[in-house]
């Protein structure tokens, strides 16, 4: 009847398209008018924007930026502005699903699912050893969940082979910080972007990937911005000086700048002497090995530009260096971070306003898993190899110290390799999607096929990864659960449950809780916990006295203040901007930071006549990682519906290709077919670029599974490929 009326021309949707005055939003669509508002923190990236969620019934009908929030100042990016649409997405996981005898995933009850999980993991561990069980988690959970999961895996299941997708993301920053400063933990604050005289962004396209950070740079009147990136990114367009260096020559650039600083007497002698170790060696190394001519040859930049960049940074009163995946996604990622730290240390640009070597992290809570997660270090940045750290933790937990591992287990890529070779037989994957994100897809598919048991716990099903699962656990996502996220500037923000999860989906916290109960270790691991706040309070005690000290924080204060930066020891009040190492004391025993000599090596998958082009990968503003969420948001899909390959006109002409042609990209490992070509001056001749979000045309079919020997982070950013017109299909 309604459709007949519509056909005749009566406006059957008038009510839906009506507007009205809303006390919070002002005049707006009637669809967005909420009954109540819940404060929260965004669940996409590490910027950590504050947001208000407007709820009607059990639905978030509107989001708005949190006015006056110290990070985002009322603004949100396009993903944040549409984040509530992820909750009602058609592909939300609804029920636990277990693979039956016929090989089909079949709905089961939660008790059946939990029983299957513990029985199958235990069975596999009995047959193949405790450490044959692997766990790959994420940077998307809440800190309380990471804290609970770490205990559950390391103490409950007793396997050390627990890592996160954060290894695909910021492991190099972690390792680099540890190597140079003695501990993980970004020293700076976003305020530094506003106060620095000179800012150098290395391999960081924040305009696409962290757009809400840009307002901090905009607010820096008179600041000089240098952007080192082989592509002319949107961020490069913001720069006073773009340094279009050759792929994987950032160490050469950083060394060259340090060389200039030493040559021109711009070293902060006093700081270097008091607070660092290794200057004499570094000085000799740089003066001998990184003269401008060599740096120019390595980077493709002219010597004057390098000298100018070095002098600019050397003369800065407040010098800031920030980086993201252009640095981390490299077999030399950790070393590149060391080269960055060198520059900051040589000039004494650490720990004061506008001065920090600053890792802009990827995921909303990659920092949380670093602090509390029990993967690459013990909770509270304690070291596996340090006896006193292990004993301290054991005492806090009232467990025997010999249950705390003395070394970290396998890192993510090593778990995958062990699964291929048979060392890992069962795997639990939580909130991540390796069948899009792992380099060289053939390898991870081989690994999955080798497993006895694969559990995938995710807010969405099916995902490319959950299709491989033997057991799928439906999880609540952002907006449906409570806890904290730590952003890049060490600000702990509160995320809140505004609505209930769909159908039988449960928060990851509750899932871990029940797994522990089924396993019989709940009372030991989670004593008298009732919810996330109890985990938070225990974590406050565990972090007390550590660099990442939460002991002075409360949920109420986090909500009232728009997050608080750690360290926030007991007795701290207010919400002042904080920095690490302001007193020049670093986390090594002698309190001195380490200067490292770092050589610029070529990337391992070099070009030749068969694979003549360098493929670079990255992201676009509309999408988040493997698009599990953002592919379900119609407006984001509309704005960026498919992947593309950027190629310089010089190369396109040589290949007789035009924009919008479909091309195949072939590497030594595989091929990605039928990608839309964009002929553009964004990329240099000889280089091509492709975003990694798209399962349908997955660039990780061709990327190189080479890993940083220190951080174990993959080398996503450079591999050799050839581009061909798409084979007719």
């Amino acid at each position, binding site marked *: 009847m309604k459709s007949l009326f519509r056909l*005749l021309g009566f406006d059957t949707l008038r009510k839906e398209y009506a507007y009205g005055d809303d006390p919070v939003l002002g005049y*707006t669509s009637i669809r967005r008018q909420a009954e109540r508002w819940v404060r929260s923190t965004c669940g996409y990236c590490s910027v950590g924007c504050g947001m208000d969620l407007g709820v009607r019934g059990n639905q978030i009908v509107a989001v708005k930026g949190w006015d006056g929030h110290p990070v985002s100042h009322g603004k949100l990016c396009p993903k944040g502005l549409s984040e509530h649409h992820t909750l009602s997405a058609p592909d939300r996981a609804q029920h636990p699903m277990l693979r039956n005898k016929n090989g089909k995933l079949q709905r089961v009850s939660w008790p059946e699912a939990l029983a299957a999980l513990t029985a199958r993991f235990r069975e596999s561990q009995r047959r193949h050893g405790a450490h044959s069980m692997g766990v790959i988690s994420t940077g998307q959970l809440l800190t309380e969940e990471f804290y609970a999961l770490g205990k559950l895996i390391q103490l409950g299941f007793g396997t050390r082979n627990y890592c996160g997708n954060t290894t695909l993301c910021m492991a190099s920053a972690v390792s680099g910080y540890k190597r140079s400063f003695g501990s993980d933990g970004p020293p700076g604050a976003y305020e530094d972007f506003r106060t620095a005289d000179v800012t150098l962004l290395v391999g960081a396209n924040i305009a696409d990937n962290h757009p809400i950070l840009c307002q901090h740079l905009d*607010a820096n009147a008179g600041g000089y911005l240098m952007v080192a990136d082989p592509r002319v990114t949107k961020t490069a367009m913001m720069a006073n000086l773009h340094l279009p260096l050759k792929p994987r020559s950032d160490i050469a650039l950083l060394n060259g700048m340090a060389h200039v600083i030493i040559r021109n007497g711009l070293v902060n002698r006093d700081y270097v002497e008091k607070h660092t170790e290794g200057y004499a060696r570094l000085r000799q190394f740089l003066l001998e090995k990184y003269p401008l001519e060599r740096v120019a040859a390595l980077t493709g930049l002219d010597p004057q530009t390098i000298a100018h960049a070095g002098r600019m940074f050397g003369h800065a009163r407040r010098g800031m260096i920030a980086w993201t995946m252009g640095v981390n996604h490299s077999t030399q990622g950790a070393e590149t971070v060391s080269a960055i730290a060198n520059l900051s240390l040589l000039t004494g640009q650490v720990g004061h306003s506008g001065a920090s070597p600053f890792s802009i992290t990827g995921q909303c809570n990659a920092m949380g898993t670093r602090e509390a997660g029990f993967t690459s270090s013990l909770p509270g940045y304690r070291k596996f190899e340090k006896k006193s750290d292990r004993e301290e933790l054991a005492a806090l937990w009232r467990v025997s110290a010999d249950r705390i591992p003395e070394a970290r287990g396998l890192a993510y890529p090593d778990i995958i390799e062990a699964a291929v070779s048979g060392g890992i037989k069962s795997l639990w994957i939580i909130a991540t999607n390796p069948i899009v994100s792992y380099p060289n897809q053939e390898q991870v598919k081989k690994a999955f096929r080798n497993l006895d048991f694969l559990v995938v716990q995710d807010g969405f099903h099916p995902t490319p990864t959950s299709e491989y699962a033997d057991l799928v656990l439906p999880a609540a996502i952002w907006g449906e659960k409570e806890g904290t996220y730590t952003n890049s500037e060490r600000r702990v923000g509160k995320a809140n449950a505004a609505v209930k999860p769909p159908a039988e989906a449960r928060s990851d916290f509750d899932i871990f809780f029940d797994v522990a109960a089924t396993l019989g270790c709940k009372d030991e691991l989670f004593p008298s916990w009732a919810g996330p706040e109890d985990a938070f309070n225990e974590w406050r005690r565990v972090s007390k006295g550590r660099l990442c000290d939460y002991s002075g924080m409360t949920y109420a204060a986090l909500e009232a203040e728009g997050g608080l930066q750690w360290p926030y020891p007991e007795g701290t009040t207010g919400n002042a901007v904080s920095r690490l190492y302001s007193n020049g004391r670093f986390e090594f025993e002698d309190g001195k930071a380490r200067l490292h000599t770092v050589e610029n090596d070529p990337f391992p998958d070099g070009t030749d006549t068969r694979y003549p082009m360098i493929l670079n990968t990255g992201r676009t503003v509309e999408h988040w990682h493997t698009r599990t969420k953002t592919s379900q948001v119609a407006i984001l899909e509309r704005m960026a519906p498919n992947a593309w390959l950027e190629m310089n006109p010089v190369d396109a002409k040589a290949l007789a290709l035009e924009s919008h042609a479909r091309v195949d990209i072939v590497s030594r490992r595989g091929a990605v077919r039928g990608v839309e070509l964009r002929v553009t001056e964004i990329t240099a001749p000889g280089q091509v670029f492709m975003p990694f979000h798209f399962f349908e045309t997955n660039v990780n079919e061709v990327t190189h599974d080479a890993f940083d020997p220190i951080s174990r982070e993959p080398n996503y950013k450079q591999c050799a490929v050839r581009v061909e017109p798409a084979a007719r299909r």
Partner: protein
Amino acid sequence: MPTELPLLDQAGRHAFTLLVKDSRTLIPARKPMPGEQYRFHFDMTKCIGCKCCVVACNEQNGNPAELNWRRVGELEGGVYPFTERLHLSMGCNHCLEPSCLIGCPVKAYTKDPLTGIVDHSADQCIGCQYCTWNCSYGVPQFNPERGVVGKCDMCHSRLNSGDAPACVHACPEEAITIELVNQTAWRADHKEADAPGMPSSSDSFSTTRITRPAAAEKLRRVDGGRVEVGDPHWSLIGFLVATQFAVGGFFTLWLLDLLGRQLPWWAAIVPLAVAKLALAAAPLHLGRPAFAWRAIQNWKSSWVSREVLAMSAFAGAAMAYAAALYLQLPGRTWIGAATVLMGLAGVAASARIYMVPARPSWNQWSTMIAFQLTGFVLGLRLAPAAGLTTEGWVLAAAIFASVLQISNSLAWQWRMANSSSPELRSSAGLLGTALRPLALGSLTLTALAILSIFFSPVAALLFAAAAETLRRYLFFTSAVPKSVASTFLKPGEAHS
């Protein structure tokens, strides 16, 4: 449990230094004075292409993803590494002479006398979508779910209560602001409304002020490779060919009548039936057929209103003339003359609908010529086909009309191919590539319509009807509208 906030936000509670201005400072502090209006200011040098404005606009208006009242386009220029990348974020330009308003048959558009904002009333709209052709910037968009058009109204009601429009509020770079502009001064000098990737501001006196970068002249739109075959609008093809056939048919009848030829009582039935059917079916192409009667309201400025009036008058006169022929009334040729006059006026009004700057391939007198010639090509063949005449001059005139039609069509294509307008060249390009088989088909059918007239007048009429239908199909599908620069990727279609 999470804290639930009271409905009213506690603004200003935090003592943080504010990075961004309160978005209320990005709109004028006072209302426009007489002679002034609000306008958008867009700063290309600040925009980072994040598209927050697009999402915020869709949220604000509860629009489905496929409708984007604000859109962001990409521009590129220079040679690596001295590449320039900039963006255009555009909503409605709230023009001084809004082509949407001028063309709307039902007065759904108003230009607010106090603010200058071009408002659209969904209640009044009948979904004819004529405004979507009229606007050079592609601003009005049809919502098929609802059957009406919608567009950016600068968040009129938000501005009235002192709040910033959704796009202004959402932009993290303060690239979009609202300003006041003196209308007379802007009419005299509106250069600042022009930018790479924007159709000329002269089409309708766009008021959006654009701050351009120094390197603006280097910039090119990056969506250039995407020229697509247009929507054929089958119902309009049917309407146009049918009404033109009817007008031509009545012209021929009237001419024979005038020359004193005896016409049988049924002579006018075919063209009358075609005209009646076409007019009766016409409302079906509207989003809201039940309100088709409103379409005459804006006869003062809308060619759609005028077409409806003229065609209705034609149909009425044709009815009277048919009756007069049946009754063999004396003096009926005067009614016939009135019928033909109304018919020609109706066809002229039809043609004028399409002659708008936003559609360069239509905005030519060849459209008028082609539409009128279709009437003669078909109408002159109707009489021989119906056995009303075998006179040589009628056949000769029919052939002559066809030759003129082909000449007009080829001249149109040739002019477009050699034009400086990218849209016209693209239209010619479509006719030479994707639409080439059909273009050749229309020529062949016309040739058959000429040759077969000597053997079978019925076949000639059928060939001619097929040729004219195909010609009209090409008219619609080869149209490349003016547009604001879009993104490299073609925006995705609706999720199924």
